[in-house]
């Protein structure tokens, strides 16, 4: 037993455990993306990296990269700032109806961007009630759209962490005379830092790769890297330039992940986490509550205009649009009625959820286990970043990559019905990992050691030490994954088969066809999608039975 060999053996063991998830990501992500990027690097069988790099010198590319960077950064910042009070109010205070509100906050996250785009423009457009602000087609509209979509991520991820934060250090500080603001600054926020940074990095990636919302709200004046890759690949067919932008995107995302990994490091990894009961509302909570109310109203506005539109028919108000959901629409716009598409969506979401949860749990466990050496810690943090990558890379590149690399046995997945849930699970995976990792990372490793020294097997240790803590966040993560899957459009529209479209694909189709009923049906179907999501979220909340939490 030579002690010096131990780190090597530990790393080997770690890599062995990581093999499964790494293989999955290798096949479903690395292979397609590199296949597509290679199309641009090899010109007529000749390797020509210089020409690809030349693309990066174009002034247009600079403009687009800069716009992507600053608009996503501002949107992320705003989402975090407005999300924090809501997270506190909905997860730490005993507000009436808070579980309903928590479910409702997640609704925008799953709405199809086309529909939200139209809803936003009905409000902000030249003739809309907020038209006097003149925001239509400006970066402000784009950023508010991005915040609208992503604030839910902050609320949920930070809220979950906040909920299981030990209130005692804060109470102790308060007892020693700290003002609420001081407690927040010196005790609460540092403890929440991993969750906040984790949520912010995910939000940034979602913003930086946002597609439809940027196009709809920004008009065509503001291109982002993502919209440019789409344009270059499908319209201009300049695969070289598309490859250059994809590489640029990957480099930036890797850099961002490295920074966020550093910021995320927990100041005190042995912090004890218990589930604190929400406390009742006090008079001193008014700043948080009014901020929350403001955010909720802002989020509700586009939704209200959406719901109102869904009840508007040619003959006044009514349920006609909803009744039509079982039909194929005006002028047979649809091959599959909305109800059937909803069933497909739900089934796909179930698949995507278990897939992302399975891989995500494994990854979260892998990356948060205490490292015994510097090399081991490096391996773990590289793995951590690796599984975040899918969020930051163009769906267009990935989609076309699927077609050209997964076309031969044994990997002939092009026509597999599981391809859609797999792609969605890939998008949900970083969310699952970011929700679980902070919690797992905060478990004091000495608890596991104690269990082991008392004779518990590794499996038993997992059951008695890890599972009770991770149970609730796991439900939250599965809710996320489910919601991501229900709302995912980019990859899905590319891969979904015509006979089994998901609900967002059908909504997109409805809104793309002329006819008043089709437009009304699109709104009604969006409301159904939103309501379904809210119900699923509510059910997930209900599942959080205390007895299970204490398993």
């Amino acid at each position: 037993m030579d002690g010096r060999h131990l780190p090597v053996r530990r790393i080997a063991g770690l890599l062995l455990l990581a093999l499964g998830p790494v293989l999955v990501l290798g096949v479903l992500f690395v292979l397609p993306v590199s296949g597509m990027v290679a199309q641009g690097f090899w010109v007529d069988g000749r390797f020509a990296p210089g020409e690809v790099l030349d693309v990066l010198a174009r002034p247009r590319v600079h403009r687009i990269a800069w716009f992507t960077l600053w608009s996503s950064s501002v949107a992320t910042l705003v989402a975090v700032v407005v999300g924090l009070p809501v997270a506190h109010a909905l997860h730490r205070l005993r507000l009436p109806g808070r579980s309903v509100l928590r479910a409702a906050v997640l609704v925008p996250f799953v709405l199809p961007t086309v529909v939200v785009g139209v809803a936003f423009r009905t409000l902000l457009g030249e003739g809309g009630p907020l038209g006097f602000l003149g925001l239509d087609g400006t970066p402000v509209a784009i950023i508010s759209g991005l915040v609208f979509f992503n604030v839910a991520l902050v609320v949920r991820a930070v809220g979950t962490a906040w909920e299981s934060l030990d209130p005692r250090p804060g109470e102790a500080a308060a007892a020693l005379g700290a003002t609420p603001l001081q407690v927040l600054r010196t005790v609460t926020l540092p403890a929440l830092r991993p969750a906040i940074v984790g949520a912010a990095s995910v939000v940034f990636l979602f913003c930086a790769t946002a597609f439809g919302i940027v196009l709809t709200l920004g008009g065509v004046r503001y291109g982002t890297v993502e919209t440019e890759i789409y344009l270059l690949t499908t319209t201009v067919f300049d695969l070289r330039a598309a490859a250059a932008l994809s590489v640029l995107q990957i480099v930036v995302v890797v850099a961002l992940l490295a920074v966020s990994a550093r910021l995320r490091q927990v100041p005190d990894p042995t912090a004890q986490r218990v589930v604190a009961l929400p406390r009742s509302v006090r008079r001193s909570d008014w700043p948080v509550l009014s901020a929350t109310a403001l955010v909720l109203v802002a989020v509700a506005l586009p939704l209200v205009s959406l719901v109102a539109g869904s009840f508007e028919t040619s003959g006044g108000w009514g349920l006609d649009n909803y009744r039509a959901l079982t039909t194929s629409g005006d002028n047979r716009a649809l091959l599959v009625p909305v109800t059937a598409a909803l069933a497909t969506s739900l089934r796909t979401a179930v698949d995507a959820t278990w897939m992302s949860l399975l891989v995500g749990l494994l990854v979260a466990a892998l990356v948060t286990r205490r490292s015994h050496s510097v090399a081991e810690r490096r391996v773990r943090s590289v793995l951590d970043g690796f599984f975040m990558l899918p969020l930051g890379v163009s769906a267009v590149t990935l989609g076309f990559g699927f077609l050209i690399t997964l076309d031969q046995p044994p990997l002939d997945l092009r026509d597999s019905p599981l391809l859609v849930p797999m792609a969605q699970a890939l998008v949900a995976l970083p969310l699952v990992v970011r929700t679980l990792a902070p919690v797992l990372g905060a478990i004091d490793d000495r608890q596991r050691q104690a269990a082991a020294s008392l004779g518990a097997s590794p499996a038993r240790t997992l059951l008695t030490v890890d599972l009770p803590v991770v149970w609730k966040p796991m439900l939250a993560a599965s809710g996320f994954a489910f919601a991501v899957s229900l709302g995912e459009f980019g990859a899905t529209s590319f891969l979904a088969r015509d006979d089994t479209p998901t609900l967002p694909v059908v909504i997109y189709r409805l809104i793309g066809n002329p006819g008043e009923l089709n437009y009304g049906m699109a709104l009604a179907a969006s409301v159904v999608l939103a309501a379904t999501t809210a119900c699923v979220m509510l059910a997930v909340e209900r599942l959080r039975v205390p007895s299970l939490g204490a398993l």
Partner: protein
Amino acid sequence: MKHACVRAAKLVSVALAALSLAGCSLATSGQEDDRGTEPQGQPGTGGTVVLATHESFALPKKLIRQFEDESGYTLEVRASGDAGTLATKLSLTADNPIADAAYGIDNTFASRPLGEGVFAEFAPTTTPPAAYALADGADRLVPIDSASVCVNVDSAWFGAEKLDPPTTLADLADPAYRDLLVTPGASTSSVGMAFLLATVAEYGDAWPDYWTDLLANGTKVVDGWEDAYYGDFTSTAKAGTRPIVVSYDSSPAFTVSGEESTTAALLDTCFRQVEYAGVLEGAANPAGAEALIDWMLSDAVQSALPESMYVFPVVETATVPKDWARFAIRPETPYEVAPDEIAANREQWLTQWMDVISR
């Protein structure tokens, strides 16, 4: 001991719940797997024929069943993405085709897949009118339908304002129509691209100047056709403020109120798009692909095109619906730009266009 039992029971129930969820997953539903896995299976039938197309594809189920009964083939439609996505997909998978036949490549995208050798030679049994044939590649791509992108006006709005609606492209830059036009962008929408091509055909190399005038006259450029038509057009958008929109020649057939259409297409502003179908080189089922394209040129399918996909048939014996005959009037001399000219200049035009509009 007792605790362990309770725990075990809980675990089992969780596992059962997971399994029951899996029951409603896609992996366990057999019906989806038995199609497409055996391209040449099922004795006594011609097997499966796979059609790759764009997301706007639609034909009545009854017609498709009829085709399957009569030909013995099973039709599998894979429709996703827009026409540009389809062209890119086909071009990238030229050596291992994703289907047997493809439909939905239009005259603005035809040269790319033709250049990559995507399509095999094929002559249908029904010969469509020569007017729709491509100059290059007529022996491989068969015209199926056509639709023209035209400027549409809200006649009701112009009537109420007592203003004569514009009639030509030049009118759109007239200060009398200031702040009235909305168009989808050429970089993000095929409708927008067609409109750009119309202006290229009209103004030649001077088109950027025309666009500068358009923008100076308050033209609004939005992302997609949906945004323009449902977000800004006074006739169809709730809070629309723009009575002139770039849409299709068939659009007026969908705004009929009583005996009149409340909108009209300006027939001197149109660019004609023709959609083609072809047999893919290296197809697993070329005979099926040929039968499929022949069927798409049959009167039954051609007559169903207007109501299914809002496009006009190319075969002269096909019939169009009553509303279409009355309100969807086709331009007689639409603008044209040759496909190879489009292919050669697309990138440059788009870059120039984007520069003009972001100025």
